């Protein structure tokens, strides 16, 4: 269970470049559904909301807790439970060979190198990626890279996955491949997307507009509300 308790992000007023800008207005939420989509325009505050979920962004007001762990004060415990998938997998993959990158995620839990390598292969096989184990990350397609990045995240064993526009850089085939993989996971998945069909497949969706949660409800209703906001030019703060 994830709880936002009046959590928001307002930039400091004494910063001349930001002048107290509200990135995300304080909001109170409970996120328990298995699939939750976050939709909204670029710069609306979607990524800020997602990054608060595993402590990459600290709220300036209120707090965020994951399974009771505060994302600021207990960031390590939170990150052991919340994995994060970025838009660009190349920013996320650190090691040059696929299996090595998965092994990096396992370093804390598997000190023995052989055991770690076996666990990495097992994690790759779980997503049907074992044939990529010895491939260079530079030789993979965009979809394969994103799946490997997902595998590296999941290998650490978190039970919540946060994905920030994971399909944005992918072509149709890879997009569908990744959506299918995300859909089959046992973990709770919270994802931001511009793909409204992908958003509509969620159990619940949040529409973020101008730093506010403009709608929160069933995914198909959220998509309709977002379309209405776009048509009526109501996305600005």
């Amino acid at each position, binding site marked *: 269970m994830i709880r936002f308790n009046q959590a928001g992000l307002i930039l400091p007023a004494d910063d001349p470049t930001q002048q107290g800008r509200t990135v995300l207005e304080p909001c109170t939420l409970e996120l328990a559904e298995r699939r939750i989509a976050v939709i909204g325009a670029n710069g609306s505050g979607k990524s800020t909301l997602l990054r608060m979920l595993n402590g990459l962004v600290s709220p300036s007001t209120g707090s965020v807790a994951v399974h009771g762990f505060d994302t600021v004060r207990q960031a*390590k415990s939170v*990150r052991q439970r919340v994995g994060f998938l970025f838009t660009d997998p190349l920013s996320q993959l*650190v090691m*040059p060979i696929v*299996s090595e990158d998965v092994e990096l995620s396992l370093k804390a839990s598997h000190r023995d190198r052989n055991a770690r390598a076996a666990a990495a292969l097992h994690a790759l096989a779980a997503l049907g990626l074992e044939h990529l184990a*010895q491939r260079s990350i530079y030789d993979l397609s965009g979809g394969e890279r994103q799946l490997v990045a997902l595998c590296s*995240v999941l290998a*650490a064993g978190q039970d919540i996955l946060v994905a920030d526009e994971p399909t944005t850089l992918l072509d149709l085939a890879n997009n569908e491949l990744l959506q299918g993989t995300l859909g089959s996971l046992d973990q709770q998945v919270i994802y931001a997307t511009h793909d409204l069909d992908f958003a509509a497949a969620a159990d619940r969706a949040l529409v973020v507009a101008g730093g506010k949660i403009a709608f929160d409800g069933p995914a198909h209703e959220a998509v309709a509300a977002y379309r209405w906001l776009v048509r009526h030019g109501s996305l600005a703060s």
Partner: protein
Amino acid sequence: MSAAHQMLLGHYLPGRSIVHRAPLAAKYLVVLAMGTAVLVWRIPAVGLGTLALGLGLFALAGPRVLRAWAAPLRQLWWIFAILGIHQSIINSPLFALTLVSGMLAVIQCGRLVLLTTTQAALLDGLERAAAPVRLLGGNPATIALAVALMLRSIPAIATSVQELSDAAKARGIGRNPATLAAPVVINTVAYAQRTADALAARGIMERN
């Protein structure tokens, strides 16, 4: 990053040859022995001998690795040519041959280690070698990760330079290095921030 750049840097080529399976320490010992021989005995026979030995080790590592042997010559031949001509003039052609062949032998032997060893194995070796820093309160794993990130940043920066260079060319700005410097630095800083976010998100090197 282009395949040519990867080959030049010594990108790992999977294999099961005796060279691939040799312990990392043995590979480093060969590099050390070759480097020492080239430095101590500055004669053409040693330079050419170590170069031939290195080529033999490439062959032993398999055809894929052997094909990568010439990569530095294809791209950096002009550096060796300038060095050889310069040394021929200020010393002698024989000395130039000794220097260039010895240098190339050691570079190739170093590349062979990178071509036949996974980065994970290299970093594990580095972590073990850096173990004494624990006595000073340091963390060998942090040092190994820093090296991994440094190696990872080379292709990222090379790609950034290539993309910006293409963008400048497309806009008719040309390939003036001074024009590219600022955007390359900005892209590099942005890349560093994204990498830091990714490491933090994966809980790697978490302290608190």
